[in-house]
């Protein structure tokens, strides 16, 4: 600060100061305000998005902020920018800014009710945003569902690799167990299929029993996890990494050699049970439960065991039980995610759950941030969207993404938002009076 007054501010400093000043009024926007602003923007896109896209010379609404369009056809950069500005940036900016006092009052009002009510209001708004945004194209619906599934997988792997500080590679294997179990469950019971024969129950019951299939898939992968955990948690070190990697390959070749489930050709025909709302509900549920776990003393015991196992045992922590529970719990959610995944793609084969999947999930965990629920969400969403958006670059995508990862590892070795707590209560709070006053002062 003092140096700034002595020497004239550099362009960079001035730019930063301008950015901060422009951002100032938005500090007082509560989460509720942002959600409503986004709702306005996606609603606008639904109403005038297509005509505007035509007007700007595009054949359809740019799916993921126009990155795909830009990369395949750079001459469209101006029209994409105008589109984003008109549909997203300006409406969100205006609505968020000018409704802030109103939504702060509403947020404060909601605080008087139990947390559950506030959470439900926010979740409904979030889902409305997502639904309006995604329903413009099938592609967006697919990306949204796969991204949410990635959140579940990333968070569950973060329990092991981040919170527990061990290195596990078996998540694709757990996903495969869950995916196959849930697929076979629905195909045998509710679908008339060439391979599994006539449906045992009326197919219309299927969607109602889908949760049972998913939980069953989760339980099967938890049992698989037990096979990994028993030998590898006797000691610390690299054993888990090696055994879990082996487990992943064992599961893959197991399914390749099981003709009952199609061998290497895989299983197809899963009905469309994993719709956007269903995946959304499961994602919210998994994040809520895992967040509950890591914030309890029982969950924090994972950190204690990671940072100093001897001290943890001396403080009455049952290290073996702690590790086992977390590992099985993580595998359970990976299995559930696998089941959802199979019903989103309507087709799985053993190759889906190989080393490529592992690299993807590990990248999301380390990109987003270790030991952090927020980090897992950030990592899963950003890497998924980036990798979808860079699709036109084909093989170069696999050069750019690793380079990003390397840069992250150099500049933020534990990931973008590591070691931060995800405090639901604080998320919903109205923003403070002091910052609001300052915002009005500068404006």
């Amino acid at each position: 600060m003092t140096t700034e007054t002595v020497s004239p501010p550099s362009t960079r400093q001035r730019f930063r100061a301008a950015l901060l000043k422009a951002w100032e009024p938005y500090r007082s926007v509560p989460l509720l305000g942002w959600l409503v602003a986004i709702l306005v923007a996606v609603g606008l896109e639904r109403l005038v998005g297509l005509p505007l896209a035509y007007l700007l010379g595009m054949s359809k609404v740019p799916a993921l902020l126009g990155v795909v369009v830009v990369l395949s056809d750079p001459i469209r950069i101006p029209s994409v920018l105008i589109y984003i500005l008109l549909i997203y940036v300006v409406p969100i900016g205006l609505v968020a800014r000018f409704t802030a006092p109103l939504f702060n009052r509403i947020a404060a009002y909601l605080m008087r009710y139990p947390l559950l009510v506030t959470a439900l209001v926010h979740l409904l708004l979030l889902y409305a945003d997502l639904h309006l945004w995604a329903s413009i194209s099938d592609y967006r619906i697919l990306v949204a569902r796969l991204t949410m599934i990635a959140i579940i997988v990333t968070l569950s792997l973060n329990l092991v690799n981040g919170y527990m500080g061990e290195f596990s590679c078996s998540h694709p294997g757990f996903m495969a167990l869950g995916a196959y179990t849930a697929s076979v469950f629905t195909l045998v019971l509710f679908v008339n299929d060439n391979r599994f024969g006539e449906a045992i129950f009326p197919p219309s019951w299927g969607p109602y029993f889908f949760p049972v299939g998913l939980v069953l898939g989760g339980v099967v992968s938890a049992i698989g996890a037990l096979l990994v955990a028993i030998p590898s948690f006797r000691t610390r070190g690299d054993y888990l990494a090696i055994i879990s990697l082996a487990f992943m390959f064992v599961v893959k070749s197991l399914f390749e050699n099981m003709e009952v489930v199609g061998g290497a050709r895989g299983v197809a025909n899963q009905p469309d049970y994993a719709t956007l709302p269903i995946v959304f509900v499961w994602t919210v549920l998994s994040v809520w439960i895992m967040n509950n776990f890591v914030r309890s003393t029982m969950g924090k015991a994972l950190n204690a065991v990671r940072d100093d196992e001897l001290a943890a045992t001396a403080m009455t922590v049952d290290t073996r039980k702690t590790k086992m529970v977390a590992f099985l719990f993580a595998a359970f959610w990976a299995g559930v995610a696998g089941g959802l995944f199979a019903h989103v793609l309507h087709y799985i084969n053993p190759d889906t759950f190989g080393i490529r999947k592992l690299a993807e999930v590990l990248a999301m965990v380390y990109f987003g941030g270790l030991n952090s629920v927020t980090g897992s969400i950030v990592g899963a969403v950003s890497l998924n969207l980036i990798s979808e958006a860079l699709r036109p670059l084909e093989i170069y995508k696999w050069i750019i993404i690793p380079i990003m990862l390397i840069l992250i590892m150099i500049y933020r070795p534990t990931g973008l938002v590591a070691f931060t707590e995800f405090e639901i209560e604080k998320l919903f709070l109205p923003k403070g009076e002091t910052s609001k006053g300052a915002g009005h002062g500068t404006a």
Partner: protein
Amino acid sequence: MALLEVRNMTHWFGGLRAVHNYNLTIEKGQIRGLIGPNGAGKTTIFNLITGVYHPTEGTILLEGEDITHLEPNEIASRGLGRTFQNMRLWRYLTVLEHVKMARYSKLTYGLVGAFFGTAKREAEEKANTELAMELLDLVGAAQFADQLVTSLPYGIQRRVELARALATEPKVLFLDEPTAGMNPEELIQMMEIIRKVHDQIGMAIFLIEHRMKFVMELCETIQTLNFGEVIAEGTPEEIRNNPVVIEAYLGKEVEV
């Protein structure tokens, strides 16, 4: 019946006899000390009694029950708390979380509570937070409750470790060099804290210490260890003047 009793404990590390025929009796509320030159086996004895190692021979009884072959966490939850020579705090937990962690074996909300955040869990976590704050207050570290331990001064870290050990509700508290690396001022503060804790909670204390002033003032009786064997046992006064002890520390006078 003694609170803690160790009978004829011997331990071999491969071909090295680290502890030989060690005996100890601690009664309720006693403060006893264990001294000896470096490498005499003091910490090994701590580790043997608290279950980190299992002794080759001998039995350890806590309130008459055999705890020789239990795991460290079981021994700790039965009422044998300890601190470490090099503290062993957890890098990414706050001070409050440290103390609450030591309540692990007393938690009853189980996995259902951990996963779904039940009312029972809320109540238990709240009660544990209150208890932890009381203990932090007792050792004078309450104002640091929300900080990570790594950012705290050394003396405060020591107090946090003590509060953490107290949260296990020890019947016997093992202190492994509680003043290691402290300056004289911190040492006196630590001595007062230990005395205060002992007066208020009244558990027995067994401590390893190098600072003679500290041992002499606090302990009722002292054992002196050399090469894994107790060479002298008695009141501070007796130990101070015991020629065997002086020899162990300073060496034998040689006649020229």
